[in-house]
């Protein structure tokens, strides 16, 4: 579904990605873990074109989003192609980024109507079904400001799903939540995983990574240090940096 090869990215002097390669297969749930500043969020943002890379290549469902020629020059596809490729992905943010001036239901309907040109009536059944799925149907006419953090994040997930993406990216979806509210969001994500939604989850929730992810990627210093099944990575980490990181959590 996604293939990233040798991604390089810097913010000014700061090198955030130094040759990250990364692959996601259909139906996989990939958890990306690592210390703050390891580049995991930047990696995610590069995949969906919120950031641009300086070198490397990204393919979405076999089609190139960006590639680098023999001279090291990076070429992005034309805007229309970028939009189409990224349109197959949805993203859930740490800070939800719901549209505050729209109700819950309007948040879900906005993009399908505006972007896909569907009628409100055509989108309504899916939107309502998604709200039932995340357990917030009764909040459909509330504004986001009336919701708790966990509810907001579940609306954000439903909003992303309303565009019917093939891949869902999560950027630390529970990091901004009070501890007692993370459970409801993780349960929603777990339910998605059980439906074989392809997911890439940047997270600090080791429990989620261990139990739900089909593969775990450990990043540090802008590189993928180690990747494997949760059993391998948590049970028998090979790299000293992975061991140190995991040891620190306990």
């Amino acid at each position, binding site marked *: 579904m996604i293939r990233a090869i040798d991604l390089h990215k810097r913010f000014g002097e700061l090198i955030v990605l130094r040759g990250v390669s990364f692959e996601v297969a259909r139906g996989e749930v990939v958890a990306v873990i690592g210390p703050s500043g390891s580049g995991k969020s930047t990696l995610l943002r590069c995949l969906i074109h919120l950031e641009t890379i300086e070198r490397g290549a990204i393919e979405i469902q076999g089609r190139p989003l960006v590639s680098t020629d023999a001279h090291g020059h990076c070429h992005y596809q034309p805007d229309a192609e970028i*939009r189409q490729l990224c349109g197959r992905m949805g993203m859930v943010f740490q*800070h939800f980024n719901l549209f505050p*001036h729209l109700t819950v239901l309007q948040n879900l309907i906005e993009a399908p109507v505006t972007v896909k040109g569907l009628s409100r009536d055509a989108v309504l059944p899916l939107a309502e079904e998604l709200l039932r799925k995340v357990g917030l149907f009764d909040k459909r006419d509330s504004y986001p400001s009336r919701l708790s953090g966990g509810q907001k994040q579940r609306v954000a997930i439903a909003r992303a799903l309303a565009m019917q993406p093939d891949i869902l990216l999560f950027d630390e979806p529970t990091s901004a939540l009070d501890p007692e509210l993370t459970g409801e969001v993780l349960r929603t994500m777990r339910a998605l995983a059980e439906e074989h939604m392809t997911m890439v989850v940047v997270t600090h929730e080791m429990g989620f990574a261990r139990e739900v992810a089909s593969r775990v990627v450990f990043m540090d210093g802008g590189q993928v240090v180690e990747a494997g099944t949760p059993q391998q990575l948590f049970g028998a980490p090979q790299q000293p940096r992975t061991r140190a990181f995991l040891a620190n959590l306990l």
Partner: protein
Amino acid sequence: MSYLLDILSPLLQGTLVTLQVFLLTMLLAVPLGLGLALLRLSRRAWLGRLVSGYVWLMRGTPLMLQMLFIYFALPFVPVIGIRLPDFPAAILAFTLNYAAYFAEIFRAGIQSVDRGQYEASKVLGLSYVQTMRRIVLPQMVKRILPPMSNETITLIKDTSLIYVLAMNDLLRAARGIVQRDFTTSPFVVAAAFYLLMTLVLTWAFQRMEKKVAVYD
């Protein structure tokens, strides 16, 4: 009492001129100001600088001077020189001037919208225009209402500047009567009219603020 009724008619006519200038200026300066704000925030830096220069010019010189320039000096400017009658000249000056102030208010309003809103719009597939129209500008409205209320109240009183083009707005009408009849009561009536107009404006803005407060 009957004297008050006598002077009411010219004062009402003056009010009509005042309202015309006010409404036309609002109608033209709001969209122009919005356009300027968007240009100012455009990725093309030279466009932003151009707008900054424009705002500096318009805020940095007196509105009265701008009006006098458009009416008296514009006809002699090469290429664009046109002679405008007094009313269009006044409207043009007010629009150009107020658009600069509005542009700054709109710019601040647009910039106060969180970057996350743009990112969420982008990953959902919204184009720049769609993001602006559907997501950013509606949120901007809420934040610009208080400063816009200020600015519109100032505008209604600024309209009295058109007397320099010998137009009979409310204040000039009142002054005419004062000078004719040697009584200051027309000033009191004019003040009451201004107060009434600002009261309506204040009320209208309060209503709008309440309307957008639903998503607080």
